[in-house]
């Protein structure tokens, strides 16, 4: 067992030395790989940060039903009973037009505003809290309520919050898509790097096999090379994303201040960093494994 670990330790350190001994070629490779990782990573962090922020905003979208000016108490009662029994309605409040006017006057500090007007210009209204915040449910509810008799129109408040959440969902999907695309790229780039290395060391591989090297002996240095490459590029990508956040945050803070908000992008936490390293390691070893297996299978055929 100890012997086995020693062998692996030797391969690991030798593979790292091999990378360090060709700093320029290695650096170019690492840059390419880490850019591929940094892009989805930055997007992920942006989406996560904005999600965290919007979660704290505490905006619950509301629907306001404005009644026709000439609606009768019976019409109000009909709407009320519909709202009471509707499964998509979480709660509602009736705002009587006289109260609404008083509130408006109080808010604007203009007492007796109505006296200059020809009666109360405000309609009766209901404020409805939807039970579900799903866009489709909200749209459907808005349409249904608009269809009730003597309803003038149904307004959707905090629609922007809804749009933001949709945007974030899009962002999540884009992150996932980019993540997968760049994961495939990582595997392919690693595969190619390792394939080139195998070609460069073909004599050594063939001679080693002739004097008793097992397939796992042949594979080992390449797998470790890929492992280091993957881990280093993940760390580099982490650095790039952190730098991007570091640069973007003051700008975002300035922008958010205009709206009296606080918004800052966060960096990876320890768990996420660990996961990133794990994924990068897995993907690059897979790429190397494909390359070595392909070569060994070809060698077998000869």
């Amino acid at each position: 067992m100890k012997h086995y670990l020693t062998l692996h330790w030797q391969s690991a350190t030798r593979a790292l030395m091999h990378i360090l001994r060709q700093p320029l070629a290695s650096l170019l490779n690492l840059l390419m790989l880490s850019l591929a990782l940094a892009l989805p990573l930055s997007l992920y962090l942006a989406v996560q940060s904005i999600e965290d922020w919007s979660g704290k905003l505490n905006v619950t979208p509301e629907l306001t039903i404005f009644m026709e000016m000439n609606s009768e108490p019976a019409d109000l009662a009909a709407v009320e009973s519909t709202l009471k029994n509707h499964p998509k309605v979480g709660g509602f409040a009736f705002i009587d037009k006289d109260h609404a006017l008083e509130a408006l006057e109080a808010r604007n500090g203009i007492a007796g505003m109505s006296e200059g007007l020809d009666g109360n210009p405000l309609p009766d209204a209901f404020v409805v809290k939807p039970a579900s915040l799903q866009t489709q449910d909200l749209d459907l509810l808005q349409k249904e309520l608009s269809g009730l008799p003597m309803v003038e129109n149904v307004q959707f408040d905090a629609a922007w919050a809804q749009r933001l959440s949709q945007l974030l969902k899009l962002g999540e999907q884009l992150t996932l898509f980019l993540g997968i695309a760049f994961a495939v790229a990582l595997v392919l780039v690693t595969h190619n790097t390792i394939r080139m290395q195998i070609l460069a060391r073909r004599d050594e591989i063939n001679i080693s096999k002739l004097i008793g090297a097992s397939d796992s002996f042949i594979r080992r240095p390449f797998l470790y090379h890929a492992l280091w490459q993957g881990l280093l590029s993940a760390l580099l990508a982490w650095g790039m994303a952190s730098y991007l956040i570091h640069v973007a945050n003051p700008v975002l803070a300035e922008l958010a201040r205009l709206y009296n908000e606080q918004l800052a992008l966060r960096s990876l936490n320890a768990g996420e960093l660990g996961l990133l390293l794990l994924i990068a390691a897995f993907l690059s070893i897979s790429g190397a494994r494909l390359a070595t297996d392909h070569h060994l299978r070809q060698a077998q055929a000869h």
Partner: protein
Amino acid sequence: MIQFDQVSKRYPGGFDALKNLSFSIENGEMVFLAGPSGAGKSTLLKLVSGIERATSGNVIVNRQNLSQLRASQLPYVRQHIGIVFQDHKLLYDRSVFDNVMLPLDIIGFDRRDAARRVRAALDKVGLLNKEKSMPIGLSGGEQQRLCIARAVVHRPSILLADEPSANLDRAYALDIMELFKSFHQVGVTVLISAHDETLMEDYGRRIIRLREGQFAS
């Protein structure tokens, strides 16, 4: 022990390089393999080391039947054999020292013990002062010695040499033969092929003569 039991080898393309051969070589024996070019000497040696596999019959090496062994097990059989290749098969981008280190790396020898072993093997073949040289800078005879050092550094129980004295002048070839004899004297089973029998006859050892894949009498 090496045992061939009705062994035939047909290469892809249909050429029969060995035809129904049976013989055995005892542990610690030194045997010569003679025959003209194309007789099947290299093929026979490749069957012993599992580089090629028999088309029919059994090849038994160190009590393992190579014909029944899975391909993935063959490398471990080879780790107990030392091979001096006809075309040397040296790594020309590595130093003399690193070339001899290779078999120990493959076995997974501890690095410090390994360096001592490598120097001992180089000393044995008289190349200790060249350990830092590259193989390309060595003469033909020295390259042959380097091959031998690499073949014995892991102390195999069987040593195979494919025409090790070809292309060497007689004095040098005799030196090489003495080297093999010294391995035989410490208990290694040695099998050496040559197309020229004159060197062998001086040694009074068993000679297996091949012609067109069969024993020649």
